[in-house]
């Protein structure tokens, strides 16, 4: 059976980077002076991070990003990738699908409602998308019957 080689490390690194950027955006949500970003007719982080779309049900989107990446670090630990417990792999897959759905919504909000793009947010979007690519393409392997039991046989 095909095994995973680079995927666990890659997703773990992407998740850690995601926590870093999401933490920065969370800080700047509350302290706008800390926001360092290009500002022109296309890119404007302040416009995005102060927009009504920067909060969902009163929760800053940046904090939702943290709530996405922190569990993702745990789910992307090598031991979690090796486990035979299908639920771990299903939860990781579900998280990545929700994450990419969220970035599609946020990108459309930036382009059509806010009419400005936040470069830091785009960084988070890219990390989320790359996580999605690795996790989804690894799904057929980790969700195959018998995955994770070979090393113990």
């Amino acid at each position, binding site marked *: 059976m095909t095994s995973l080689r680079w995927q666990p490390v890659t997703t773990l690194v992407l998740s850690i980077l995601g926590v870093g950027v999401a933490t920065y955006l969370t800080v700047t949500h509350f302290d706008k002076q800390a926001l360092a970003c290009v*500002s022109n*007719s296309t890119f*404007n982080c*302040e416009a995005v991070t*102060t927009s009504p779309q920067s909060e969902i049900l009163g929760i800053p989107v940046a904090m939702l990003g943290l709530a996405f990446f922190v569990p993702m670090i745990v789910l992307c630990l090598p031991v979690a990738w090796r486990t035979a417990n299908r639920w771990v792999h299903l939860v990781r897959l579900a998280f990545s699908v929700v994450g990419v759905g969220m970035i599609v919504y946020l990108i*459309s909000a930036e*382009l059509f409602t806010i009419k400005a793009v936040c470069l830091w947010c785009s960084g988070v979007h890219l990390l989320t998308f790359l996580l999605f690519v690795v996790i989804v393409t690894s799904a057929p392997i980790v969700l*195959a019957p018998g995955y994770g039991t070979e090393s113990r046989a």
Partner: protein
Amino acid sequence: MAQDPPKNSGGGNTPKPGGNQPKSPAGQSAKERSRAQSRPVSGKAATKAPPARSTAKPKGASASRPAGSKGGNTPRPGRSASSAKPPRGLSGALIAWGVVGLVVVVVAVLVIVNVTSSSTKAANYTPVTPAPASVVKDVTTVPASVYNTVGITMPAAAHAGLPITLSKQPALTLSGKTPALFYFGAEYCPYCAAERWGIVTGLARFGTWSGLELTASSSTDVYPSTPTFSFRNATFTSPYVSFFPVENCTNIPDASNASCSGYTTLQTPTSQEQSVINKYSSPTYIPGATAGSVSFPFVDVDNKVLFSGATYSPQLLAGLTQAEIASHLTDPTNSVTQAVIGTANIVSASVCAGTKQQPAAVCTSKGVQAAAKALKLS
């Protein structure tokens, strides 16, 4: 290290009983027969196989196969090659990559639609038109209760900061009139667009507006097309304070006009007004300001309070019309109203500092007092 398959192991490498099993040569032990019928697990195993095994090759097996070749996917003797299944996970991988491709396509479509729609309206600008009487009425007759309820409460995410309070400066006199409120801005400027709402509603408590017009900030700058008024033809009449507006630039693009950041020039300040700009729009009075340049909007309220930039983010007004903004000004819980009226109270408190707290009904009101306290004017 290659090993013989376990006796009871299942899977594809165990010969099936019956069927097209080849006949074993006479004299072979059961173990040797089993080895002969089993495909090698790896090329290495096949290489290490005893020479006798080569004689046990079943009929129908390829005689030309090299000894070291891998045989894992080779059809069994008697089986048709066309009946072999594709490797497990291939269809799953295709679906996975298909999903990834779908996401890429969706994002690409969003970007293309946005770029296409932006390019078609890039050269547009919002013309200046007379403000409808209903809009003027809404912004100039905001109930006192709304001013008092809002105070300086503003949406935290949109609050950009308070203006600068000056001390020990002579009262501002322009064209022989004092106290005076000097506004220096531009129609393309989104921060001016946001601040005008507070200036119009704040000053409305001290006098009467006429000649107000509607427009919007640049469609290609930050906070594009922020809805607003224009002061280019506006007149404000008041027994308490005089208003001197200068709309330096339009929102009409003119790439050749560097003095207006790529827009056409509209009005220029008088020498007296230019002196005010030169003196107060400087690092001496505005921290972070660059000597010799002005950040729009620059507002000097009787040399007592300086506004440099907007009090709240223009983003709050995105997607709204002037009529919508104006009609919401009776709702103190509305975030746009809070930003506009909060700014209005700050403007009013600044004016009151120069009018010796007149009119008292305005200057001693709860909302204005809250602003005065925040500005350290009281």
